[in-house]
């Protein structure tokens, strides 16, 4: 497994390695200062833009009700993607004990931590109410993919910090010595000493370190995979064309590793030139990463084909509209195809022939992939939001999004912050792992295989037998009394429910002055929440009765009672206010029946979900604790010594 780099024979001695690698910490020249000053400048501009956004609201962005996510979410996905660099290169290569990883691991791990910090901040910048961020902890609902994001990203950041740090421990004594020799500030020396945990080259120290590193390298891989899977689920768990896709998890994970690897190659090229590390970052390293990048670009191409070809061939209405926008003659279509050419095919072309790929070709491919992957994420987020199920165009609206100046400034600031942090990191800690590079040199000499790091390895109708006589007449007709001289007839209405010709009927018996009223038109109705529901009209027969069908199954009140209304429509001398009668026979009210899977939208998460998430987290955090215990043990060793 351990493959010493070719040409290791010409490797300089340990002292020279140290000198060369630590030289990266030497005071910056003019170009360096200009670089840092300009990055700080862009960050400050972005800060001003953010303060302006905070003061004015998100109106200063180009985001509106249809396209409610834009550049910030793109940045979020992009940076989280970049962060996968460290995991793959460092952890996988460490587990497989690939010797050529050594000059790359530090850079990769630093990219992970820094990209995560920048990526996570993008979500906060995208929030309408960043002042309520603590609600995520106070009112957090585990059913929301955002909580999954919060939990996994937090776990990932913690793990990455730990991983980066553990792998730096053996460098710390070297750094302390170096800083002392160079007369650097005592505070810096003290920082290195504290961070060193008293590490020395003793078998016990080594054993503890190897254990800690091995455990971290293993656990960080599932954590990293979970993070980008969960990021994809923020889109994948919605009912939106182009997002609700079963392959979104792996698609995003591959995309992340793809862009992460390209980011590492780009960073390597930059540091190689800026810090004159040509002797350590050999073309061989670029070549090996290029092979990996080629494999990942083919994989990403394959996932992209699967995603869009099935959508196009199947031709769901919503999918078709999305594809017409995404791949048709629109700005998005142009971008999509340009991405295909410049972000995928050209890089593949540059990488496909191992014998013909120059360093320039590899770096060009990496830069194209990085730019392309930002655009690809934008194309995943924005066009879907522009093609809702109910076409906005049907209401005369054409949703459109293009980042505003504020968004562009903040995006620039995010990139500047990433580069600045990376630069500053490389000013304090060597960008190449000194101890691992030395180890590489040792191996080259003795050809003794290094130790393997890991072996870890929801109405019932009322009974018809109920025949209830109505309650007494409720209304006294006042105007009838007033005009008593005219002998205006005072109608009497009795309402009953009875079986007529074996039909369930509502029967009103109308009489006036003790005699049945014939040929009067009677309207039956029943009161409901917002009004009176007409049941029907009937004309009184010789016995003065009129009838309509009983509203079987109509829900009554809590006691199953229905409030009926009987109104005489004609003859006009009988018209009066309605008579209200309460009768039993309404269907009993149904209690609230939850016939939908409430668990997902209730305020509390279902127990199995909580248990699963806690179990997974415990696995990870116990591993972290194990690593920390190794570090504490290391520190104790020093005290005993």
């Amino acid at each position, binding site marked *: 497994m351990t493959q010493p780099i070719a040409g290791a024979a010409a490797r300089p001695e340990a002292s020279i390695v140290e000198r060369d690698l630590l030289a990266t910490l030497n005071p910056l020249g003019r170009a360096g200062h200009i670089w840092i000053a300009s990055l700080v400048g862009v960050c400050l501009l972005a800060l001003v833009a953010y303060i302006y956004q905070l003061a*004015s*609201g*998100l109106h200063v*962005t*180009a*985001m*509106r*009700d*249809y396209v*409610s*996510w834009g550049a910030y979410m793109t940045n979020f996905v992009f940076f989280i993607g970049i962060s996968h660099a460290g995991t793959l290169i460092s952890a996988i290569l460490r587990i497989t004990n690939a010797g050529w990883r050594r000059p790359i691991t530090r850079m990769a791990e630093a990219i992970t931590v820094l990209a995560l910090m920048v990526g996570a901040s993008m979500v906060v910048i995208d*929030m*309408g*109410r960043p*002042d*309520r961020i*603590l*609600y*995520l*902890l*106070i*009112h*957090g609902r585990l059913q*929301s*993919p*955002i*909580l999954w994001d919060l939990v996994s990203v937090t776990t990932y950041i913690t793990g990455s910090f730990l991983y980066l740090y553990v792998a730096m421990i053996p460098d710390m004594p070297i750094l302390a010595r170096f800083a002392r020799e160079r007369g650097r500030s005592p505070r810096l020396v003290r920082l290195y000493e504290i961070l060193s945990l008293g590490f020395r080259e003793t078998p016990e120290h080594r054993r503890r370190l190897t254990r800690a590193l091995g455990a971290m390298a293993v656990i960080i891989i599932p954590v990293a995979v979970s993070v980008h899977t969960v990021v994809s689920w923020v*889109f994948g768990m919605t*009912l939106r064309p182009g997002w609700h896709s079963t392959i979104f998890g792996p698609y995003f994970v591959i995309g992340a590793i793809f862009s992460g690897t390209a980011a590492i190659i780009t960073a390597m090229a930059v540091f190689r030139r800026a810090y004159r590390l040509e002797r350590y970052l050999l073309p061989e390293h670029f070549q090996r990463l290029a092979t990996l990048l080629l494999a990942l670009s083919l994989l990403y191409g394959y996932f992209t084909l699967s995603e869009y070809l099935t959508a196009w061939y199947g031709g769901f209405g919503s999918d078709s509209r999305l594809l017409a926008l995404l791949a048709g003659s629109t700005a998005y279509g142009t971008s999509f195809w340009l991405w295909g050419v410049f972000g995928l095919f050209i890089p593949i072309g540059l990488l496909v022939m191992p014998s013909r790929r120059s360093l320039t070709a590899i770096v060009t491919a990496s830069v194209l992939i990085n730019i392309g992957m930002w655009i690809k994420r934008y194309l995943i987020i924005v066009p879907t*939001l522009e093609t*809702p199920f*109910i*076409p*906005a165009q049907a*209401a*005369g*609206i054409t*949703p459109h*999004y293009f980042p505003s100046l504020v968004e562009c400034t903040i995006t620039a600031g995010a990139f500047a912050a990433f580069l600045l942090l990376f630069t500053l990191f490389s000013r304090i800690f060597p960008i190449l792992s000194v101890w691992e590079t030395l180890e590489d040199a040792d191996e080259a000499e003795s050809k003794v295989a290094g130790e393997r790091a890991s072996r870890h390895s929801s109405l019932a109708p009322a009974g018809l037998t109920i025949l209830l006589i109505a309650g007494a007449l409720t209304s006294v007709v006042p105007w009838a009394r007033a005009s008593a001289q005219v002998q205006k007839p005072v109608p009497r209405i009795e309402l009953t429910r009875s079986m007529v010709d074996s039909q369930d009927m509502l029967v009103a018996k109308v009489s006036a002055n003790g005699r049945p009223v014939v040929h009067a038109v009677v309207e039956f109705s029943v009161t*409901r*929440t*917002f009004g*009176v*529901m*007409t049941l029907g009209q009937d004309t009184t027969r010789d016995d003065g009765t009129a009838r309509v069908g009983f509203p079987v*199954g*109509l829900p009554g009140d*809590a006691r199953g009672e229905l409030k009926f209304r009987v109104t005489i429509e004609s003859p006009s001398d009988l018209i009066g206010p309605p008579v209200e009668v309460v009768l039993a026979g309404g269907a009993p*009210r*149904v209690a*609230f029946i939850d016939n939908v899977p409430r668990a*997902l*939208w209730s*305020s*509390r*998460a279902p127990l199995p979900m*909580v248990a699963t*998430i*806690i179990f997974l*987290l415990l696995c990870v955090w116990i591993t972290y604790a194990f690593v920390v215990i190794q570090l504490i043990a290391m520190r104790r060793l020093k005290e005993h010594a």
Partner: protein
Amino acid sequence: MKMPRREFLRAGLLAAGGLTAGTVGADRLLGAGAKSSGPRAAATLALTADGELVVTPSAEYAALAQTSDEVRRGIPGRRWVMVFDLAACDGCGQCALACAKNHFIPTDREYLRIFKMQDSPDLAPYWFPRPCFHCDNPPCTRVCPVGATFKREDGIVLIDNERCIGCRFCMAACPYSVRVFNWSRPNDPPEAHTRGYSPEWGYPRRVGTVEKCDFCADMAREGKLPHCSSHCPMGAIWFGDENDDAVTNSAGKTVRLSKLLRDRAGFRYMEELGTKPRVFYLPAVNRQYPAPNEPGANHGNLPRGGETQSAQ
């Protein structure tokens, strides 16, 4: 026992820091605090109004804390439901106008939007008014990370703008594009400030939070029809209680819901999405008005049309 805000916040932080079980614990703690009266409830509310209101731990706030549970539960025994009669809708837009007026909706958004639909070139166009569907299986409510949007027992989906963190995940999750956002600082008229805030009416507005059609939960509480329904000149918007099996329109006509849906072949929009909307439609057959493209029709000249909204 008075809990100073900072300490309470820290308690929340620590609890959540102790993994997810802690978060659930903090939620329960807060719920308990809101139900019990006294100084503890006041402490809870101090947090709810965090960052925007001047916090006065007064009895007024304590009262709000007690009713918030009622607001979240809804009106007991009710299952509100809306039915749009597409055969009667002539696209006049009076519903949207009344809605906007009574909710003090700014000109850049609509709770009730009228679409001119034409399912295929061979089929006749029709007007399609779209409020919030108040789904029984709401995708928006699922994804809310803080429980700011919630499903009530009376079927209404509401938003607590004092809890919303503005992540807009619900906007992305709603397949009907119902939800709108307070992109800029609200400019509510003075009338909007007369009765304080409640999720049941959603104003005064809060910047950086999501809002939408609320089925006029406050009107329902008073036994009144929603503004859109009561203002429809065609009587095309029926509203009622499913448990009552009756819906009423602006003409004051009340009909049996089950019969209406059965006789008129009612449907729900995009049933296949599985969201189980509480809004039904009656197909646009035997129209009582000229179709959108026929002479004499409303040519989308809605009093409040989407036309006035630009992307920027």
